[in-house]
């Protein structure tokens, strides 16, 4: 049940409300990452087909499946279609995914027959850097590709997930390192440099519909395509969000506040997280 926090993440202190003396208080003392995961899970409608990356996306998708979306179809790039894991996989290829899938297909098939034609409703992506148009970098930090400051894992399935899914949901912690004016490398295209770019490029999926962070939720402006803060998590201020963004963050006129995690959501999420912390049976 340890909260996963990353060095450098400026976790808003306001969100660990008080001393966890009772079980109820312990549940109430949710972390920023938990709020982010719960907010992401809530966005998944039952019955949707969802292309799931490992880490927070997988946690959120499984949380949704165990709570409000029992018929969510989880698709992992390892070839597992309709996986129904009873514990969180550590990787996209854990045995529990193949064991519980409706079908296990080859990796070329999952990309060619399932992702590419636009059969997947929702693509769930993480990001190391994100810009105001939802373009994503997971390749290198630094201006020089050949001599990067930080070498990141790279593209994986993301470029085509971002291109082909009906819509994309990005889960990323919001801070000056991740929310940058310009990504150092475009690994996956959001809205390019603005309106009409996806169409010009011939990308057939809808692009980022939501960016869910540890501070709140951003949505692309319907006209300018610029990511706009539309919702804050409980206890977070718009100033905190703007201070954690490397560009002049647009804020919606009607800025809502998300509901905190329910006891049920937290209980299920923590039970799921607990299954990840050992090797599988």
């Amino acid at each position, binding site marked *: 049940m340890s909260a996963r926090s990353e060095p450098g993440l400026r976790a808003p202190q306001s969100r660990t409300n008080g001393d966890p003396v009772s079980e109820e208080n312990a549940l109430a003392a949710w972390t920023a990452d938990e709020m982010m995961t719960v907010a992401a899970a809530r966005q998944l409608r039952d019955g949707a087909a969802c292309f799931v990356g490992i880490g927070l996306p997988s946690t959120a998708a499984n949380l949704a499946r165990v709570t409000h979306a029992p018929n969510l179809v989880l698709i992992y790039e390892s070839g597992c279609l309709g996986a129904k894991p009873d514990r969180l996989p550590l990787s996209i290829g854990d045995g529990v995914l193949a064991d519980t899938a409706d079908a296990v297909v080859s990796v*070329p098939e999952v990309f060619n027959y399932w992702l*590419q034609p636009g059969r997947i409703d929702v693509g769930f992506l993480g990001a190391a850097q994100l810009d105001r148009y939802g373009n994503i970098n997971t390749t290198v930090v630094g201006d020089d590709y050949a001599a990067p400051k930080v070498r990141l894992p790279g593209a994986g399935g993301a470029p*085509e997930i971002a291109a082909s899914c009906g819509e994309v949901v990005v889960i990323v912690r919001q801070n000056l390192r991740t929310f940058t004016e310009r990504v150092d490398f475009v690994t996956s295209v959001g809205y390019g440099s603005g309106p009409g770019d996806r169409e010009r490029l011939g990308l057939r999926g809808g692009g980022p519909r939501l960016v869910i962070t540890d501070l709140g939720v951003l949505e692309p402006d319907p006209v300018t395509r610029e990511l706009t803060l539309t919702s804050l998590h409980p206890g977070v201020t718009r100033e905190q969000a703007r201070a954690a963004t490397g560009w002049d963050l647009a804020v919606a006129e009607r800025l809502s506040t998300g509901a905190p995690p329910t006891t049920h959501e937290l209980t299920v999420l923590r039970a799921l997280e607990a299954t990840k912390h050992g090797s599988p049976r």
Partner: protein
Amino acid sequence: MARLVSLADGVADLVRDGDVVALEGFTHLIPFAAGHEIIRQGRRELTLVRMTPDVIYDQLIGAGCARRLVFSWGGNPGVGSLHRFRDAVQHSWPRPLELEEHSHAGMANRYVAGASGLPFAVLRGYTGTDLPRHTTNIRPITCPFTGETLTAVPALRPDVTVVHAQRADRAGNVQMWGITGVQKEAVLAAHRSLVTVEEIVDELEPVPGQVVLPGWAVTAVAEAPGGAHPSYAQGYSVRDNDFYRAWDEVSRDRDTFRAWLERHVHRTGAAA
């Protein structure tokens, strides 16, 4: 019919200095034992190819076997970054590492083209990303019927592909099941292939979800029980997630890594 060989002989025979080598396996069935044998035999100047270079490639890169990496995602799945890979790219340690970088869809289709005897594959991919700026191996292609522009990538044809599977029979017919990734394509795309297996049996009992590679399409088969560890072989073992987590610490420091390599690879012989 595939030859049945020892792992040491198979690697000695089929993996050569300067080769383009693909060790495939998508989280499941990763040929760790074969990778360790390549390190033990001191192969150099390899071009390593793999969709998901993970811990085994971190080890091969850290051991100095590789000159070049062709890949689409280089990380420790579910844990984080690969420190030996990073150190090679950022600080050329123990030697510089050239990169050719793709997306999963591109790499998978490159293997498909290789397996199909075609010089290239077509996909909807890479469009708008910075990936095409860094290689000439991603090019536009026009549909001769609709005029639409798509993306072409050249076939991958490794000199040798190494994979791990659950079983083979004595004729070298190979059987794998569970997540089988891109292994069939990687084997069929290669000029030579080496398959390590959990066990060699008299008869391959059919299993749901199986992929069977006929022995006449495989060069050699070597028995290597547990040869996927810390990855796993469905029906034989489970993924050693603790190892993957521990690797983060082991690989962070060059000396710790060298000590690990000495103890767990060099001082451990291959299965005879």
